[in-house]
């Protein structure tokens, strides 16, 4: 079944698809993280570049500012040098330049001095080092030279005198003079081109820190200034950076093993450090002053300050990404749930479909076999439900020489109609077990259906009882489509078989009102005729243009079937083909049911016939018994069988004697016997009240002695001993026919 395979494939696809989500989520998360990482690295590189640029600016600015101060001092000294050299011979006057120096630049210049070769001025003594200093707003003059303070050994003196270059010293503690850390700038004083002394100034170093740490882009950054040799010149205050940290950084700076990198277009060098106090990583950028002194200015930055925002951003982005992944997971989970729901509903639909298919099989098995071929009747039926189960029904069975058949249509279609169909079907069977009047059968079914019929479902139904020996059809129609009769006779005009609808009273459908009265109608069916029954699924079949197949088309097809003397199966096939061609692609809108019954009574070729008439008196039985014996002798029927026949016939006749005529009245009972050599037929007829022994209830043979009823044995014996029993009321006479096969197959 390709349908089932397709459904299995669809199920597989759905299952596979639900595995993917986990993969999707993981891939999406990885992808997002990759993008974030890439972005982060790029931003970080950008920030680093930015930092290097700003650091470079910072360092350059610091250097310039330092140089500004130093230059100011240098220029002042140079200027006073000119004056000093002019007054070279007047040491006292020369000292005035020192006052100028100190006063001109009060902020930075702490003290100014002159220092001459020993004994250059004999009048001044061996040592001549006048020193002018500011203290508490007052300018003081000292003579610094003394054996304890041998300035000739000092760096500021020696460098200027011997090297003949302006010189800045490294910071040193000037206990004698400034009582502070100072740097000294000295220039040689020349007389006749020869250095004879030194002029210089002392600068404190405190201003250096203020200058270099005046402003940094990052609040926690600070600068340290070191000499060319890596010794302290200035360090930030404790509030900015702890002494331990500063020492640590300077130690790293001086440690050649520390990894460095040249950045900032080759002008600054960088190394990294770790601050244990704050548990932070940082970096140090440094560069040297271009002009002398070539101090090294270090700029210390903390990574968290530089990249802190980026890290924060990254964290935030990560959280957003996580949220995104969470939403994706939610979507996927919802999708999975929906698809699982879909799967489940598919499965339950399939289960329902499977159950309906089983129900259909059960329904089909409840129908009689689609074909029945007996000596005297040939039946073919077909029921095609619109859905898996249908609300149409047909049924037929033979009892006591009569064919009971029905066709019905439950309102609606599908499972609910199918269930009502099943109920109606069993009602038909039970009602026809002891009733041969189709109107009364219909009534029984109606009363039972109308009761408790909450859904107001109803059934249109046609019931027929065809007496097979005579062709007498009794029928009752409850709102159903009138069957069509193809009679064997030929019309005068066309010479082809007569096709017409059976004339039916319009009774209400079954199940509407419990007290509906149904009418019974009669007709004779000629040998060779066919009855065609159908439901409105045939006449109301629709094509894609919503046109109905219609009664006319059905009639036309019937006429064709009649003219070709088709058998029941052929008729049904022909009608089916016709309606299927008409419907084409459109969906079947209603259950389609057809039943064709062909009546072919066999002519009885008797080789022996005999008659006997008796009065309705039990005592006649003896005489009657002799008659039967005579007949069985003539037919050479063996003793046991003859005894059975005698018993059955006696019981039947006794029944008639007892019930046919009212008590006390006389009546005749006619017994006609015939045989074709294969069977023996006994026809017992009388003109008494209508009395149908076939509807009498048989005795229950399973009861115990105490429970056994006295009655019912007669009819039981007749049924058991004879092969066929048939009752018809014809022309005001009861006609009971009994048939027994004389040579039964063992």
């Amino acid at each position: 079944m390709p349908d089932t395979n397709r459904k299995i494939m669809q199920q597989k696809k759905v299952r596979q698809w639900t595995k993917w989500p986990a993969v999707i989520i993981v891939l999406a998360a990885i992808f997002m993280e990759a993008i974030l990482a890439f972005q982060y690295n790029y931003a970080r590189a950008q920030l680093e570049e930015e930092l290097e640029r700003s650091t470079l600016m910072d360092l350059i600015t610091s250097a310039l500012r330092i140089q500004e101060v130093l230059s100011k001092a240098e220029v002042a000294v140079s200027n006073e040098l000119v004056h000093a050299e002019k007054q070279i011979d007047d040491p006292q006057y020369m000292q005035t330049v020192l006052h100028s120096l100190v006063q001109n630049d009060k902020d930075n210049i702490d003290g100014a001095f002159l220092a001459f070769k020993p004994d250059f001025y004999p009048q001044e003594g061996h040592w001549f080092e006048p020193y002018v200093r500011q203290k508490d707003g007052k300018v003081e003059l000292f003579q610094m030279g003394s054996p304890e303070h041998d300035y000739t050994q000092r760096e500021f003196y020696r460098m200027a005198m011997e090297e003949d270059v302006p010189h800045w010293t490294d910071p040193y503690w000037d206990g004698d003079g400034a009582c502070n850390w100072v740097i000294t700038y000295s220039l040689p004083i020349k007389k006749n081109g020869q250095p004879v002394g030194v002029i210089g100034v002392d600068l404190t170093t405190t201003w250096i820190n203020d200058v270099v740490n005046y402003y940094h882009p990052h609040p926690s950054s600070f600068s340290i200034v070191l000499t060319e040799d890596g010794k302290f010149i200035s360090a930030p205050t404790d509030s900015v950076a702890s002494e331990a940290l500063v020492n640590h950084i300077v130690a790293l700076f001086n440690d050649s093993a520390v990894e460095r990198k040249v950045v900032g277009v080759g002008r600054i060098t960088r190394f990294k450090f770790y601050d244990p106090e704050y548990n932070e990583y940082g970096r140090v950028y440094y560069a040297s002053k271009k002009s002398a002194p070539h101090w090294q200015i270090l700029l210390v930055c903390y990574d968290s300050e530089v990249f802190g925002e980026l890290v924060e951003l990254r964290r935030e982005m990560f959280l957003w990404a996580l949220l995104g992944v969470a939403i994706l997971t939610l979507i996927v989970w919802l999708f999975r749930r929906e698809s699982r729901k879909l799967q489940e509903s598919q499965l339950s639909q399939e289960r329902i479909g499977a159950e309906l298919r089983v129900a259909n099989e059960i329904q089909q098995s409840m129908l009689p076999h689609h074909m029945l071929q007996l000596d005297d009747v040939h039946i073919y039926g077909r029921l095609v439900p619109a859905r898996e189960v249908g609300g149409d029904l047909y049924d037929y069975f033979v009892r006591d020489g009569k064919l009971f058949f029905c066709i019905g249509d439950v309102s609606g279609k599908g499972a609910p109609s199918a269930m009502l169909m099943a109920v109606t079907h069993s009602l038909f069977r039970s009602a026809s077990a002891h009733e041969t009047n189709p109107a009364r059968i219909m009534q029984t079914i109606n009363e039972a259906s109308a009761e408790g019929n909450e859904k107001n479902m109803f059934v249109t139904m046609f019931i027929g009882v065809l007496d097979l020996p005579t062709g007498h059809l009794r029928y009752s129609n409850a709102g159903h489509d009138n069957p069509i009769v193809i009679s064997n006779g030929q019309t005068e005009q066309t010479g082809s078989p007569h096709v017409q609808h059976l004339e039916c009273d319009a009774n209400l459908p079954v199940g509407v009102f419990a007290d509906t009265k149904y009418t019974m109608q009669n007709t004779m069916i000629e040998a060779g005729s066919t009855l065609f029954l159908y439901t409105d699924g045939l006449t109301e079949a629709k094509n894609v243009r919503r046109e109905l197949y219609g009664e006319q088309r059905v009639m036309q097809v019937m006429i064709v079937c009649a003219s070709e003397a088709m058998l029941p199966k052929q008729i049904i096939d022909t009608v089916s083909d016709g309606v299927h061609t008409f419907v084409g692609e459109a969906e079947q809108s209603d259950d389609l049911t057809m039943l064709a019954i062909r009546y072919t009574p066999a002519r009885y070729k008797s080789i022996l016939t005999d008659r006997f008439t008796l009065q309705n008196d039990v005592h006649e039985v003896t005489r009657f018994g002799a008659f039967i014996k005579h007949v069985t002798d003539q037919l050479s029927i063996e003793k046991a069988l003859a005894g059975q026949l005698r018993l059955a016939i006696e019981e039947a006749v006794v029944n008639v004697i007892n019930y046919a005529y009212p008590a006390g009245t006389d009546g005749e009972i006619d017994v006609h016997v015939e045989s074709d050599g294969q069977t023996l037929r006994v026809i017992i007829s009388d003109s008494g009240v209508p009395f149908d022994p076939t509807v009498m209830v048989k005795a229950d043979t399973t009861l115990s002695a105490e429970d056994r009823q006295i009655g019912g044995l007669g009819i039981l014996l007749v049924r058991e001993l004879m092969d066929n029993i048939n009752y018809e009321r014809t022309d005001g006479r009861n006609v009971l026919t009994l048939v027994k096969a004389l040579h039964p197959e063992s």
Partner: protein
Amino acid sequence: MKTTIEELEGKWIATLEGELDTVAALDVEQALKPLMDSHGKDVIIECSGLEYIASSGLRILLSILKAAKANGSKVILRNVNEDIKNVFKLTGFISIFDFE
């Protein structure tokens, strides 16, 4: 149809000979009337000569059986031939009577 009954050794013995059809049943019913009240005595019906039995006859036997059972006595059918046994089978009487 010949019907005889006699008491022997504390039991009723009834003999049926011939054809017990609907007509004969009228007389047989009368003849076997004493058996309807057996006073606790078992009833033995000799059927070796019985060639035919109709439903009326079966009814008589059933009545005798019901009466006997009410008294706690048995009804035994003797030497029933095959054809009649078949009738008993068809009517279910085969399981309510005792056969010898």
